[in-house]
């Protein structure tokens, strides 16, 4: 590990600003490391920085494959978009380029962000730097693995039902899903439009705050974007005095790995030491989150993925007539999990089933959002383990899609409610990282980051072991 890559992103930006490090040297160090990556985390590595200067002083950025980057492959981990180079760049990537973060590379992911293990990539699974036989989590597994392995100072991911938080937990790094609408979705290859949100994957909480601050914007190209009412400040709180942490009693702990529960309890104890109070809170409908999510997300996905038809871009498999061109193209281009979700979503929207599935799921979504609003009347944050398990073995859950879906149990409710949540590493179970999730009301990112920072200092998690 070179000294340059020992620095966090914020430290590296300061070093460049202060003239202690050249932006070129910084970029080259990461470019070489990314090019030498052995985890299959990268699908593309840039040769040269495309921007410099700015508030981020040339600290390079790894970007999940599904963000459109002009002239650079953007495939969303799918064979149907293999080699696709878009004619425009996603707003959030553009925002960060303007702030002085050059594109380091494009990272591997589950196909169309559908997955919790990164095994659904058309370009092969990503390995977890903590244990090469295990998954890095998903769907932003490439981004998480790259940051954990130190081949990127930080990375962009997207979170639809946990796709930033869960891989962050499994790779021992920080991942934040912002409030829905805080970051523009323009140029993000859509999975589920009402849930997708871009966020940072970073080594620490400070880097997450720094990156998020330059991501947010109200984008005229995204009607659902709001931006933020205030600036994201860098966190500095070391105490949690007066903070009420809500521990939901309605979420089942059945199936949660003992080591994950132990880490969770330890962190709650630490929080109390820092001045927080732990209170029981009620999210009576959160237990139904997975069911509602696995109707809404596939339904939207089935429609979002209809554009992959072999007409204007991407793979085309000819079959003679038009109908066969469609069915062959989509058969050859989509992987098994994507097909499964397209089928599930198409079914949930189809005539005669809409009310029983999509209609009901949308109502459950209302109940879950209301649960959180009511909970936040009594507590500042809701806290849970990020994922029920630590990283599992590659192939372990491949034949059991439902078990894989249940890995999103703790992260999906926040996605349905559109509220921000962060995962910070809070220990090891059997030598593998565990994650602690804090969720707050809409637009409470600054407060979440502050609380997460205080906990991070107290936990003292050491992730340097995997950065070689």
């Amino acid at each position: 590990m070179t000294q340059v890559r020992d620095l966090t992103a914020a430290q590296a930006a300061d070093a460049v600003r202060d003239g202690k490090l050249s932006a070129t040297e910084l970029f080259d160090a990461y470019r070489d490391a990314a090019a030498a990556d052995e985890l299959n985390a990268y699908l593309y590595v840039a040769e040269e920085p495309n921007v410099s200067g700015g508030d981020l002083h040339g600290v390079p950025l790894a970007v999940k494959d599904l963000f459109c980057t002009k002239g650079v492959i953007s495939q969303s981990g799918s064979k149907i978009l293999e080699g696709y180079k878009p004619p425009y760049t996603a707003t959030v990537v553009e925002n960060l380029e303007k702030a002085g973060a050059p594109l380091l590379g494009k990272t591997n992911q589950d196909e169309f962000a559908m997955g919790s293990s990164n095994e659904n990539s058309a370009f092969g699974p990503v390995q977890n730097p903590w244990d090469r036989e295990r998954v890095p989590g998903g769907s932003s597994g490439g981004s998480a693995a790259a940051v954990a392995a130190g081949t990127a100072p930080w990375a962009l991911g997207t979170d639809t039902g946990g796709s930033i938080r869960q891989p962050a937990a499994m790779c021992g790094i920080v991942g934040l899903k912002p409030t829905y609408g805080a970051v523009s979705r323009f140029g993000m290859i859509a999975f589920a439009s009402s849930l997708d949100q871009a966020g940072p994957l970073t080594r620490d909480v400070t880097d997450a705050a720094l990156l998020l601050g330059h991501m947010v914007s109200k984008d005229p190209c995204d009607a659902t974007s709001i931006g933020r009412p205030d600036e994201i400040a860098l966190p500095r709180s070391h105490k949690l005095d007066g903070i009420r942490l809500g521990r939901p009693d309605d979420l089942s702990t059945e199936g949660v790995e003992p080591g994950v529960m132990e880490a969770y309890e330890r962190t709650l104890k630490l929080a109390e030491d820092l001045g927080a109070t732990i209170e029981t809170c009620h999210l009576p409908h959160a237990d139904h989150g997975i069911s509602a999510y696995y109707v809404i997300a596939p339904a939207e996905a089935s429609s979002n993925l209809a554009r992959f038809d072999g007409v204007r871009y991407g793979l085309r498999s000819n079959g003679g007539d038009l109908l066969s061109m469609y069915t062959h193209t989509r058969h050859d281009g989509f992987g098994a999990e994507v097909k499964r979700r397209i089928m599930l979503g198409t079914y949930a929207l189809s005539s005669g089933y809409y009310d029983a599935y999509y209609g009901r799921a949308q109502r459950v979504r209302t109940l879950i959002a209301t649960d959180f609003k009511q909970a936040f009347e009594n507590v500042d944050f809701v806290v849970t383990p990020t994922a029920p398990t630590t990283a599992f073995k590659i192939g372990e859950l491949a034949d059991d899609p439902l078990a894989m879906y249940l890995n999103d149990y703790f992260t999906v409710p926040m996605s349905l409610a559109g509220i921000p949540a962060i995962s910070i590493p809070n220990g090891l179970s059997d030598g593998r990282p565990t994650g602690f999730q804090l969720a707050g009301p809409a637009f409470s990112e600054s407060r979440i980051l502050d609380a997460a920072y205080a906990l991070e200092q107290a936990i003292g998690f050491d992730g340097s072991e995997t950065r070689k």
Partner: protein
Amino acid sequence: MNYEPVIGLEIHVQLSTRTKMFCGCELSFGEPPNTRTCPVCLGLPGALPVANEEAIRLGLMIGLALECDLAPTSIFHRKNYFYPDLPKGYQISQYDEPLCRGGHLGDVRIHRVHLEEDAAKLVHAGSSGRIHGSEASVVDFNRGGTPLAEIVTEPDVRSAEQASEWLRLLRTTLRRLGVSDVNMEEGSLRCDANISIRPVGSQEFGTKTELKNMNSFRFIQRGIEAEIARQKGIVESGGQVEQETLHFDPATGSITSLRSKEEAHDYRYFPEPDLIPIAITEELLASARAALPELPAARAQRFESELGLSADTAKLLAFRTEYADFYEEALEGNGSEPVPLANWITNELTARLGDEDPQQSKVSPAALAQLVGLVSEKKVTNAGARQVLDKLVADGGDPAAIVEAEGLGALDDTGELDGAIDAALAANPDIAERLRSGDMKPMGVIIGHVMRETKGRADGGEVTRLVRSKLGL
């Protein structure tokens, strides 16, 4: 048994915005194929729609003009189906919460008005070498994403003729609103008809068929007539009408089924998550209201009550906006009499121009007003003025100058007219005799003779007066 047709109409109107419904591409007017596209209207991965405020304003104007209830908030849905002219695999349209509901135009009630995006254009390309043994088409996305308002009527129309007449009124209304070019040939106004028949007196509806995309008033009338006849034939021979989508071929007059039955449609509508609900703000509504011109029905009323036109003439003018505008412009100029001017336009000018827009013709409103003035002043006869109008339509120009140049000025009672009458009486001694004896029936023969001789410059009434005085009657 007698059957009565029950007809509902669905009209798609391309709105006259500058840019497309959900992106900043300019609308296309015959530009080279695929030069008016962007990531949004090509359905590129990651692109998102943002609704055009002007399209919503134009939609509201239609709603106001048709006296609809305007929804304070309405939402866009996705209508999912695969077709090469549909880049996203879904059309953004409105479903159960449209922009406007209810309302009426004339005696036909409006069911709803909603906004959506147009499909692209699919052009047959002949045989393709690459796709062996099959025909190919080529997609041009210039039109894709053009804003459309879909106007759906209640099934209040009872004949093909009524359908065609009502559509003319709708077209005039929309043109008057300035919300669309309403050009049927170019596809900016398209009409589908839902048609069923039922025994006269029955309140039940029969099974309806949908007749697609008829692109002229004539085809609409003929298509609906043909479909009514087809349904009657089926029912009278003991069969049952099947619900299907049909295409009318104006060349052969035949009706064919457009889609195979096995492909049952399931559009899987759901709320478009990329767009937020449209909230109609006070400003938007006020701006739509302010832009609302006087509509044809109100204009006809005004022509009748303020200008003294007959109800029929008033409607003839007001329901053809281009003629009503021409009329009002002509009125402004020379202080012409409103009634004769209106009659000249509805009787003479329309007959000469057909479907041509008078504003684009060689006749200027001022010239027509001047001509009608010359008639009123008896400087030219009606017959002479018709000849002048022929000239104006052919070549344009100044009516007085044409009268002068062509020698079409009305004859007075001395000189030439006197001589012509004398000649006519001399040439028809038997007629002259019958007139003298008090039988006025053959007066027309003398007038006709005089007219021929003077090339229509004589006034019929004047000729009669002179003949009577000459014969001492």
